[in-house]
């Protein structure tokens, strides 16, 4: 009796299709509609109009070919970039820009890491801040104004609820402004963990008078700090570091 279905190919195909479809709906389509599949961090805010315009520039210029936006939960990676990426961070990222190749560093925690001024300087000429960097200069973006109509159309398509006032800020903004605004928004839904100080409070520096250590430290300063605080520590983007003695 049960064996007869195997002798009717069309009926069999229909029954198989129905069974597989039921399985697909139960196991895949239904869970996709549940809120657990769309996590959203509490701090996560929708992109502002300017940030969204910057995100478009990020896609237009293909930044994601060289920069990823995911920190994997690996020790070295968390140390280098910051807290690993959470599923709930990307609720407003349509499409996500995780990328897959790091010619440049990961940008998942770039938001708030540097000042706006630093970003303008870096986009204008990355080599001024990182000698030998192969990042292209994007200063020319400052000559291209953002098109508010275009941004508005995209916001509507993505379902971002913006008012006229929100889009009015775009009027005199350039693509570079938008890109910098977007940089500062990336990954800010996850709070930055404060770095523990290298020397605990009350401890004295054991290397304080060691001339070798001072020379080594000067090299590190020139490599990492001089770009913002100036070669002579008189300050530029960052504050002055001399004690004015």
């Amino acid at each position: 009796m049960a064996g007869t279905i195997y002798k009717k190919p069309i009926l069999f195909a229909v029954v198989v299709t129905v069974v597989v479809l039921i399985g697909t709906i139960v196991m895949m389509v239904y869970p996709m509609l549940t809120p657990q599949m769309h996590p959203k961090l509490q701090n996560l805010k929708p992109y502002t109009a300017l940030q969204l315009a910057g995100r478009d520039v990020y896609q237009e210029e293909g930044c994601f070919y060289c920069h990823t936006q995911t920190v994997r939960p690996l020790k070295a990676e968390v140390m280098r970039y910051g807290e690993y990426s959470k599923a709930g961070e990307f609720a407003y990222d349509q499409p996500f820009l995780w990328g897959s190749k790091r010619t440049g560093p990961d940008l998942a925690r770039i938001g708030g890491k540097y000042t706006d001024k630093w970003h303008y300087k870096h986009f204008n000429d990355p080599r001024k801040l990182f000698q030998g960097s192969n990042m292209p200069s994007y200063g020319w973006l400052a000559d291209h104004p953002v098109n508010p109509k275009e941004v508005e159309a995209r916001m509507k398509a993505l379902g971002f609820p913006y008012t006229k006032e929100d889009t009015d800020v775009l009027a005199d903004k350039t693509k570079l402004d938008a890109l910098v605004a977007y940089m500062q928004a990336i990954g800010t839904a996850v709070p930055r963990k404060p770095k523990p100080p290298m020397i605990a409070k009350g401890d004295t520096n054991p290397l304080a008078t060691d001339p070798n250590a001072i020379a080594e430290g000067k090299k590190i300063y020139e490599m990492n700090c001089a770009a913002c605080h100036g070669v002579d520590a008189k300050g530029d983007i960052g504050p002055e570091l001399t004690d004015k003695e």
Partner: protein
Amino acid sequence: MGWLALTLSAAMYYTIPKVYNTEIYSIKLANTHFWFVLIGQLIFSITMWILGIQQGAMWKAISPEDGSLTYTFMESLMGNYPYWKMRTFGGLLFFIGLCIFAYNIVMTILRAKKTAVAEGR
């Protein structure tokens, strides 16, 4: 890149003369093409292979003394440059090989058409 490029060119070396009912223009050039592509591809693969391992190792390197990262991202990027230069050279060889291949195929077709006209076909 290497596997597909060589397979495709082999297929064309076989079919193009059959289609035009002739012999390949130059077997010597075909051999030159093979060696250019092979050596170019090997340089390409091996440099990228070393680069990938070096880059990953530099990203992961942690000082055993204080547990800090050994290299900045910039240092790992600077470490890539020599390999990228070697890769460019390998890619150049590969490209020259492909040009030789294209020349060989075009000449085969042109010669076949000329003889066809001459024989009044």
